[in-house]
């Protein structure tokens, strides 16, 4: 159980916890490239990186792209406010950041009130964001988190040829979702090694089980799924954030069920969350988000 409110995350044996509700969703796109993408250390780093797999850099792409620290900080600030301390921040991504060595989650934590424990989940394709949600639910369920921010980020510049088919966005984007303690557990199902022909049947069974006797359900499907049904679809061109950006569009009072499939890694992920959406922190407080400058230390020292 987290016992103190200072810049350290402290925990002992897992305790009793809570479920979660979704409070806020803020998404932003960015067509511009970051000046950080032209840092002189990137060329030697990326040259060595691609050489491990016998690849060469794409000169026309090198020097473009976005930095997740700059891309995601505004959405983190927009879903948080100074009087709502956050315990946990999880960043999920698929396409690498243009700053390959930067621990961006730690930077984003410094944009958050509450000095949350922060880390990143990756190397799982679009399923990484579902794993991040599952982890937020698990930290809440074991008493270590009452308020959490899920961040998903993607940027479109990959400065070397792909060795296998994989989703690449057509522009840069980030989304942040604020979750708070609630009575209902978040359901996240992750199916592994699932062939495409099995997706529809497994999805239908999961939806039936997750929705139970719920009166109203909003279903949102990711860009990896085909469906003729009348459902919300992910924002086109954004394979990583496009689904999550639509979660703020659900009908009031309806259970939110969302899913995505990745044919490359074989993951089908299905999740159900109770939305109790509030207006964004910016609008709610009349002030610019958390009111905390990113990178600012909490000021209490590690004591």
């Amino acid at each position, binding site marked *: 159980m987290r*016992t103190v409110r200072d*810049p*350290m*995350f*402290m*925990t*002992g*044996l*897992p305790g009793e916890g809570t479920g979660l509700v979704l409070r806020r969703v803020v998404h932003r796109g960015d067509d511009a490239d970051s000046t950080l993408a032209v840092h002189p*250390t990137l060329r*030697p*780093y990326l040259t*060595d*990186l*691609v*050489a*491990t*797999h016998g*690849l060469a850099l794409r000169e026309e792409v090198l020097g473009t792209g976005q930095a997740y620290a700059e891309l995601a900080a505004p959405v983190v600030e927009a879903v948080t406010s100074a009087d709502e301390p956050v315990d946990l921040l999880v960043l999920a991504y*698929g396409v*690498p950041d243009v*700053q*390959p*060595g*930067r*621990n*961006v*989650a*730690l*930077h*984003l934590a410094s944009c958050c009130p509450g*000095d949350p*424990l*922060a*880390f*990143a*989940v*990756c*190397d*799982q394709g679009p399923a*990484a964001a579902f*794993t991040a949600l599952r982890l937020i639910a*698990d930290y809440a*369920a*074991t008493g270590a988190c009452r308020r959490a921010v899920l961040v998903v980020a993607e940027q479109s510049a*990959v400065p*070397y040829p*792909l*060795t296998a088919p*994989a989703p690449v966005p057509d522009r840069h984007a980030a989304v942040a979702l604020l979750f708070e303690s609630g009575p209902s557990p978040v359901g996240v199902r*992750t199916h*592994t*090694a699932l062939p495409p022909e099995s997706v529809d049947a497994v999805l239908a069974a999961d939806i039936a089980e997750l929705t139970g006797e719920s009166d109203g359900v909003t279903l949102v499907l990711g860009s990896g799924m085909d469906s003729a049904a009348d459902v919300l679809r992910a924002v086109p061109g954004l394979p990583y954030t496009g689904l999550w950006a639509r979660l703020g569009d659900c009908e009031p009072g309806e259970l939110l069920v969302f899913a995505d499939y990745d044919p*490359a*890694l074989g993951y089908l992920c299905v999740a159900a969350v109770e939305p109790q959406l509030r207006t964004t922190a910016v609008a709610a407080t009349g002030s610019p988000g958390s009111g905390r400058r*990113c*990178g*600012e*230390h909490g000021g209490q020292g*590690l004591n």
Partner: protein
Amino acid sequence: MSTTLADVAAFLPERRVPVEELGPELGLTPTQVRVLRRFNGLGEVRRQQPGETLVDLLEGAARALPTLRGREHLVRYVLHARGVPVVAPYPVNPVHELRTRLGLAGATAFAVTHHACASGLLAIDIAGRLLTREREPGALALVVAGEQVFTQDERLAPDHRVFGEGAGACLVSAGGPGDVLLSYVAGQRGDLDHWGVDGLGAMDRFAQEYTELLSDVLLAALKQADLGIDDLALVLPHNVNVVSWRRVCRRIGLPVDRVLLDNVPLVGHTPSADTFINHASAVALGRLAPGDRYLTAGAGFGAVFSAMVFEHQGSGNMAATEVTELRTRVVDTLSVLLGQLLGGDLPAVSEETRLFDELGLSSSKTLELLLALEDELDIQVDVEEIDRRDLASVGSLSDFVVAHADGA
């Protein structure tokens, strides 16, 4: 249920490279290399052979886990704890290739990162929480850590530590036999960000505040576990260098000989894997006994400082005194039962007495002895993981019983 390290292993490539050979590669002067060896206590690092891959490195550690084989079906998660966020060109995916090689296709695999060289500790905490809500009894998570040194980040000047290649692995369970996690503390300082706007300034401040920040998380982790410095049997450090650990020891009053620094000159600093490599060494060197409380710590740019406290081969939440008492009763009872079994032929029995070689017991007789022990002490011993090494001597059998006893 508690987060438990059910099994820990390490893998080191055979190729040894002295720091003097690394000097030109790292752009160090001969004097700087002498400082590394004389002042920082570094000697050599391990490196893979040309052509070997990151997955080869991680697989070496996973296959060194004695209890993974035969339990693959129980592994629900595979986590790669990564110090460097990007180690392969997208979409090359080392953790999924590892999952395939190990025959763990049913497991969910992903990388955990952004805690620099403390990502291994974070991955253990994450794995424990995933398993706490897992429905299937006996479910496991495999955590692997280790990275290739494929480039030299110009910002990470190699003046205090040298990166080596090595890997660690552990199986995490929610309860059951193994090392029980008592506390985890992570202190984050996003303002000390070497990739941020004032990167060089942040690195300077990181160096200035390092001893204080690492000391504080060590003390916080002990306090969270309701322990003091004197309760610690051992500290498993990150192998950054010897001198920084001496400073931390002086600051918090920890005797330096309680920090396992043996691997610093032999292995160097392996991102996120030092905890596992040092754990394997501690067990091999006999530095951890059942019931011992030990701490492991790591730190890295970004910045993060983390520590975890464990109880070695603890029986759930059984206190160390209870473990010690149980072990004494087990040894005493085994002596009595061996007397009954062997009658007048019994030589003097001690913990070192070898059941097969000295007493001539067969495997089946030894198992009968174990059953009689259960009846005598009214305990139940989980024998699923017992092997011939556990049956070697009175002492090893006692260790196994204490670590695997329920209802004691």
